[in-house]
């Protein structure tokens, strides 16, 4: 009798809920991913095809190479991409290896080294323009102290490219560092222990054990670095408008020039196609490395395999990474222990002569340790200095900004807050736009990406194809989409409105979020879903009541990184917006980054205001990321992120 009373309401409920709900439930495999597929088809697939059509139909793709400036631009692009990538890779690898080795302060060092990644690329450009300023910049002032007369850096054809590479390397090295550091943390301690008992140590351990095990991680790091530098637009833009642009402009910048300054739209389409093709090469290699089918659990068993993407062997390793405070203590303890045991083993089996050598190497090891600390401290200073410089510049008065006779004041004696006042007045409009747009994009991203990730993870909708598509979109330079989107936005009548940005920013956030969320979703046991199904929940209720609350950490990462993408975005807000802030409440589509581009180092002397602007723009994200560090790092490394 009682079972009757329990099951009856369920049946009534089912009948009452109508056709629609059951339709969505029945075809959940498709309905879950539908919003994502529809959006990506309209906003990414269409623009790419449109570029192809435009350039082929009008024949511009053929005359591509005869474009004025083309040779120099291709050369610039190659120098910039390869130069930045190799510098970033070497520095990132070195830093990761060293930070992983130090006993104390791993967390502090890794946080400090990560900070440049949190500064928006436009702000990075601005700050480095200040640093490279030939007359009042700190770099030449520092060189003067050493008795060297510094070059004109950004103002000179033969040094501007070098300056841009330095600035870009400063910004992007942390990404390489984080990826490799995560890979290092993923090597099980037992491997080190076994190797040290087998007599390996120091460089032989690095050469025979660590680097071979890191190979896939290193490949991912190089590709990520290559892709980020190839699509770099913001920083190149800042340098181009403030120096001899001919010697620094790269393909994305040329596309922008052709499309929106010179009005050669069909040539711009042709350049888009070329950029697309070039970008696809590293992307396909990356797709191979990322083993999409393993992340989806399509080939490997138990969903363990995808963690190999970053050389992360398991949950424990990721925990070690995301809970940095604990990891160093444990690892240093383990290190000490395995050192001791290896030494004991050596002492027992080797001759006394060898034992003496062991003592010598101990002394060497100790001095080596100090060298490591010294190096890391210098690296931290370099990581922090530009941030410090933008801050001190913002509070200097005129005389300290531009000392008569040149040079730079490193420690200002007087504080002048007028720059901050100006910045707040000028920025407030852009801030409102950025805040509203970011918030809307983040919410929409979760609403679209969450069901899509669940559908792909549990129903394997589209197999690996949908996910691969997401990764391809993720690694495409955003300039590729801008021209068709510009027409879209104009036609839709939302040009220079918040909607222009909200509708297009999802291009960056949705694919990224889907890939990230799938990774975390595979960690939720499928039995939870099944138990919920047996308990009477439908697919959509399972997403809402089970998956959503269980994914909280992943959601924090997703929100944080989506927020960062929106907040730092520059190209779209430059093109799709028009209204400059003029004291009234803004409704235009111009975000905070646009404000900084009004800086012209030569003609504009309100350095303090723009520096203050850079600080105001960067600070919220830096604080947020420091507070939520484990989510930030976890998300970046799990997604092997888009920079």
């Amino acid at each position, binding site marked *: 009798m009682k*079972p009757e009373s329990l099951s009856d309401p369920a049946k009534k*409920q089912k009948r009452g809920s109508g056709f629609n709900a059951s339709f969505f439930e029945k075809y959940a495999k498709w309905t879950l991913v539908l919003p994502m597929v529809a959006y990506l088809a309209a906003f990414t697939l269409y623009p790419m095809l449109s570029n192809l059509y435009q350039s082929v139909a009008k024949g511009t793709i053929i005359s591509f190479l005869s474009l004025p400036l083309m040779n120099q631009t291709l050369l610039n692009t190659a120098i910039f991409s390869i130069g930045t990538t190799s510098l970033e890779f070497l520095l990132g690898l070195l830093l990761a290896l060293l930070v992983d080795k130090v006993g104390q302060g791993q967390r502090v060092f890794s946080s400090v080294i990560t900070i440049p990644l949190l500064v928006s690329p436009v702000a990075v450009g601005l700050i480095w323009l200040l640093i490279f300023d030939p007359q009042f910049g700190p770099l030449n002032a520092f060189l003067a102290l050493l008795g060297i007369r510094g070059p004109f850096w950004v103002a000179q054809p033969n040094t501007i490219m070098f300056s841009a590479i330095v600035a870009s390397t400063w910004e992007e090295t942390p990404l390489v560092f984080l990826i490799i550091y995560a890979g290092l943390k993923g090597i099980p301690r037992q491997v080190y222990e076994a190797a040290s008992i087998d007599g390996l140590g120091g460089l032989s351990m690095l050469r025979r054990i660590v680097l071979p095990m890191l190979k896939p991680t290193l490949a991912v790091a190089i590709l990520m670095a290559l892709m980020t530098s190839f699509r770099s637009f913001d920083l190149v833009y800042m340098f181009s408008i403030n120096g001899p642009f001919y010697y620094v402009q790269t393909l994305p910048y040329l596309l922008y020039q052709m499309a929106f300054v010179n009005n050669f739209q069909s040539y711009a389409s042709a350049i888009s196609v070329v950029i697309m093709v070039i970008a696809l090469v590293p992307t396909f290699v990356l797709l191979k490395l990322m083993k999409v089918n393993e992340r989806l659990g399509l080939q490997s068993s138990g969903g363990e395999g995808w963690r190999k993407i970053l050389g992360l062997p398991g949950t424990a390793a990721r925990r070690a990474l995301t809970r940095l405070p604990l990891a160093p203590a444990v690892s240093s303890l383990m290190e000490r222990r395995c050192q001791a045991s290896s030494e004991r083993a050596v002492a027992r089996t080797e001759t006394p002569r060898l034992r003496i050598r062991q003592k010598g190497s101990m002394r060497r090891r100790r001095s080596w340790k100090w060298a490591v600390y010294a190096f890391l401290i210098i690296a931290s200073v370099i990581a922090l200095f530009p941030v410090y410089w933008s801050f001190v510049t913002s509070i200097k008065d005129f005389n300290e900004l531009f000392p008569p006779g040149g040079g730079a004041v490193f420690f200002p004696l007087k504080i002048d807050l007028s720059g901050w006042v100006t910045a707040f007045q000028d920025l407030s409009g852009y801030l409102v736009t950025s805040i509203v747009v970011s918030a809307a994009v983040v919410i929409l991203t979760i609403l679209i990406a969450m069901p899509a990730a669940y559908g792909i993870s549990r129903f394997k909708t589209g197999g690996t194809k949908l996910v691969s598509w997401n990764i391809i979109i993720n690694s495409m330079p955003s300039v590729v989409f801008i021209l068709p989107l510009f027409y879209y936005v104009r036609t839709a009548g939302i040009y220079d409105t918040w909607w222009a940005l909200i509708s297009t920013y999802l291009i960056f956030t949705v694919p990224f979020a889907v890939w990230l969320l799938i990774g975390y979703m595979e960690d939720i*046991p499928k*039995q*939870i879903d099944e138990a919920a199904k047996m308990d009477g*929940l439908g697919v959509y209720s399972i997403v809402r009541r089970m998956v959503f609350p269980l994914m909280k950490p992943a959601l924090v990462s997703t929100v944080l990184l989506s927020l960062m993408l929106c907040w730092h975005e520059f190209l779209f807000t430059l093109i799709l917006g028009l209204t400059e802030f003029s004291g009234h409440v803004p409704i235009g589509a111009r975000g905070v980054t646009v404000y900084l581009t009004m800086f012209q180092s030569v003609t504009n002397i309100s350095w303090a205001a723009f520096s203050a602007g850079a600080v105001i723009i960067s600070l919220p994200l830096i604080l947020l990321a420091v507070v939520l560090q484990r989510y930030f790092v976890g998300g970046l490394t799990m997604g092997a992120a888009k920079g």
Partner: protein
Amino acid sequence: MVSVRFVDVVKRFGAVTAVDHVSIDVRDGEFLSLLGPSGSGKTTILRMLAGLETVTEGEIYVGDEMVNDIPPKDRDIAMVFQNYALYPHMTVRDNISLPLKVRKLPEQQIRESVKKASDYLQIGHVLDKKPGQLSGGEQQRAALARAIVREPKVFLFDEPLSNLDAKLRVSARGFLKRLQKEMGTTTIYVTHDQSEAMTMADTIVVMDKGRVQQSATPSALFNDPANMFVAGFLGSPSMNFIEGSLKGDKGAMEFLAEKAPIRLSGVRAGLPAGGVVLGVRPEDLRVSLDPKDGDFEAAIYVQEPLGSVQYLTLEVNGVRFIAQAKANFDVELNQKVGCSIDRKRMYFFDPKSSKRLG
């Protein structure tokens, strides 16, 4: 209170046939155990009944209703998972009340049902904790509470004891059996552990390679196995199998081992002459230090004392088998002993089909 029927059910995953024409009848209120090694299809059968897997061919009935196309939430079947699948973000109370909340029962009734279930399972004191804060045994009881609270037509258990430690497993076994009898709910219990199936089930269905090998009461399975698989799967240590042949005529037959000088006369009549496999359980093999007439000789290969008894692995010409002996049976390695087999406890199998003979 319902019966469950599987009629000629087939499940294929691509080219792999996981369940191959299986028909099972579960009586109203019966405790039926699906027993088999991993990959035998037992869990797939359970999941098809739960509605978590589709049925490729055949029909499944709960009561008189064919449930093939009914979604799991409308089947009114509860399942306890191997890892319990408690919702980690909810308190135990919310876990237990979720199935009732989803069915939109009145608040008051939910509270009473949860109280009843949690009192019955003695987890009233942990209702406001999250599953992560519970011990293994408490988690298991919470999962049980979630299953019984909605008084479903059928209980499904998917190896629910395998995450418990050995000691707790034995007590949980008895508890589950008692609970099933008190509730009187039709129950299907999947396990690969023969002792669980033997101690708890009314009927055991032994599965291998997607097919039903035998379906019978525990004692019938043990004493009257239908084939070598069932004979070898039940009992610990498993039954010894010795290849050989039967000779003789109606009066009395004689077994001759193929690879070893083992000759056993006085085998009961009525069996077909020719190649056979002799099956004998370790407890039906007697060893002694002074061999009698008709005994055969074997050497001690390994000795495994267990306290009350010991298991001896014996060897004759490379043929090895296990015998149970008293703990105080004092032998050394490689020592020769005499062996005899209880003639009434000998099983013979067809070496080709592996079916039981006679």
